[in-house]
């Protein structure tokens, strides 16, 4: 991680977006803190992926705009955006038989011209990404032969090799066991601390989101329900409104921050 990230201002202004005639996001305004880790939480299908895809210039907004350092990303060339902002989608596809180092090398695409050859900078970026994600040992293996957790780290390595100042990740920990979830999140914090990369990630685990994020955004039904410091955002009211779930908030003995304990219909000692 030798190249330091620049602090980038990523903001959404009165953004609305959706598919065909259906509007999913409505009037979302968001200032992503530069150089910090932001987590987006919310129920299934509330528009988290849609928000990330619109921020990353993949989806054209129906209204409002996304600004990167004051410039509208949807007016910028896609390559120029890709040099500054990366996205690891929820379900990327691995070409059959591709090796780990080949896949990670794909992350260099926005830095390569039509005729330019593989450069020393590309080499350095790939090696640093393999190193940072602990995937160096299987750099020459085929992706299909790895476990789910290893594979996810390889995808993150691809996103790291892109060496962007802003990195968006859509559910980077889903399908991972708890140890691998922690490992991936620790890795993102490492990168954020070492390079100053601005991270925006969608997470399903509220408690991990609260623990790892500097800034928490709770999305409900395509709108921002609340955002701010995780300690302030994670409340029983928020969980009820966003997830429709009763819960208690208690202190996380490890981080010292808040943590949520869900209340279901069964297995409760409450009177």
């Amino acid at each position, binding site marked *: 991680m030798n190249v330091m990230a620049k602090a980038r201002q990523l903001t959404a202004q009165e953004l609305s977006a959706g598919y065909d005639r259906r509007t999913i996001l409505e009037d979302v305004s968001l200032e992503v803190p530069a150089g910090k880790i932001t987590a987006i939480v919310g129920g299934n299908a509330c528009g988290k992926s849609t928000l990330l895809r619109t921020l990353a210039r993949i989806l054209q907004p129906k209204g409002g705009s996304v600004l990167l350092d004051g410039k509208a990303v949807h007016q910028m060339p*896609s390559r120029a*955006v890709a040099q500054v902002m990366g996205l690891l989608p929820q379900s990327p596809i691995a070409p059959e038989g591709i090796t780990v180092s080949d896949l990670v090398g794909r992350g260099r695409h926005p830095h390569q011209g*039509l005729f330019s050859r593989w450069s020393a900078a590309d080499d350095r970026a790939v090696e640093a990404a393999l190193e940072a994600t602990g995937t160096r040992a299987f750099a020459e293996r085929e992706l299909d032969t790895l476990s789910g957790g290893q594979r996810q780290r390889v995808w993150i390595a691809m996103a790291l090799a*892109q060496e962007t100042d802003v990195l968006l990740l859509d559910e980077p920990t889903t399908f991972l066991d708890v140890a691998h979830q922690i490992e991936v999140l620790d890795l993102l914090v490492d990168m954020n601390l070492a390079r100053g990369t601005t991270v925006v990630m969608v997470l399903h685990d509220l408690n991990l989101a609260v623990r790892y994020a500097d800034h928490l955004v709770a999305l409900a039904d395509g709108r921002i329900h609340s955002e701010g410091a995780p300690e302030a955002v994670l409340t029983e009211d928020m969980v009820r409104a966003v997830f429709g779930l009763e819960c208690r908030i208690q202190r996380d003995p490890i981080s010292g921050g808040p943590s949520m304990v869900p209340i279901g219909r069964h297995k409760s000692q409450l009177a």
Partner: protein
Amino acid sequence: MSAAEVHMALAGRRQREGRRVVLALGGLVALVFCLVFLTLSCGRGCLAPADLMAALLGHEDAPGFIVNDLRLPRAALSLVTGLCFGLGGVAFQVMLRNPLASPDIIGISASAGAAAVFAIVILSFDGWVVSAVAVVSGLVVVVMIWALSSRRGAAGARLILIGIGVSAMLDSVTAYVLLEAPAWDRAEAMRWLTGSVNGAQMGQVWPVLGALVVFGGLLAAVSRDLDILRLGDDAAQALGVRADGTRLRVTVAAVGLVAFATSAAGPISFVAFLSGPIAARVMGPSRGLLPAAGLIGAVLVLAGDYVGQFMLPYRLPVGVVTGAVGAPFLLYLIVRTNRNGGTI
């Protein structure tokens, strides 16, 4: 492994990869060259290389007519159409992430063929105009299949089934036009139904060569983006590749290649379909899949034509030979794809 070791390992691997690509492509070029040589020098009997050279150089006492007027156009047409079919086929297969999505399975070859027959037999067009009609008709069919399978790029079974249906319809159009043709000519009919390089003339070669330069060039220019598109639309766009723009250019290039080749030699059965998967086996996951598929296409047409002419009890047009090879492979792929939705 230490950082330095990784660096060495990666650099070494890239070198080996590079060498492998060069070696494999070099081998294929050599194979194509041998087959061209075979087509030029051997018929019922074989010419000595010296006689072949003499004929090509136009010496008086050499068998100039056989070599220059019969075999050279035949070899040249086989070469350029094979390259076109191979490139056009693999481009679609990679773009739609499905080996069944090749232009000859999903109706693009059939539509180019039907349009070409219609233009020649009914409208009495010839030359470039026929090819242009074939290209336009190929594009129309792409748009139609796209719309019917409700867009969203990926090659669902839907797109392929619709394509197969469209293909069957267009084949019957071709058959009908041929039946209505004033001068019923079995050889001509075979050309439009299965593909043939019989009676090739250099005049047929030039438009296809032109298409190869123009559309092949376009394909080469987008090939890196096409490779990135294999990671899925979202990942590709996040890497700065415009998914729809790339698909549009790949489609135009592939339809152009296939339509020009089809309007010259007919829809040589299954060459577009077979080339990509064979090239993928030859090249492995390394780069160079597109040129390899083009070369494999040329190998298939040249070898198929030679086999059809001289190695079977009857003389058969090349499309019958390649069709006989391709059909079992199609069955195999359908069985395999049903099991695991395989990619190229």
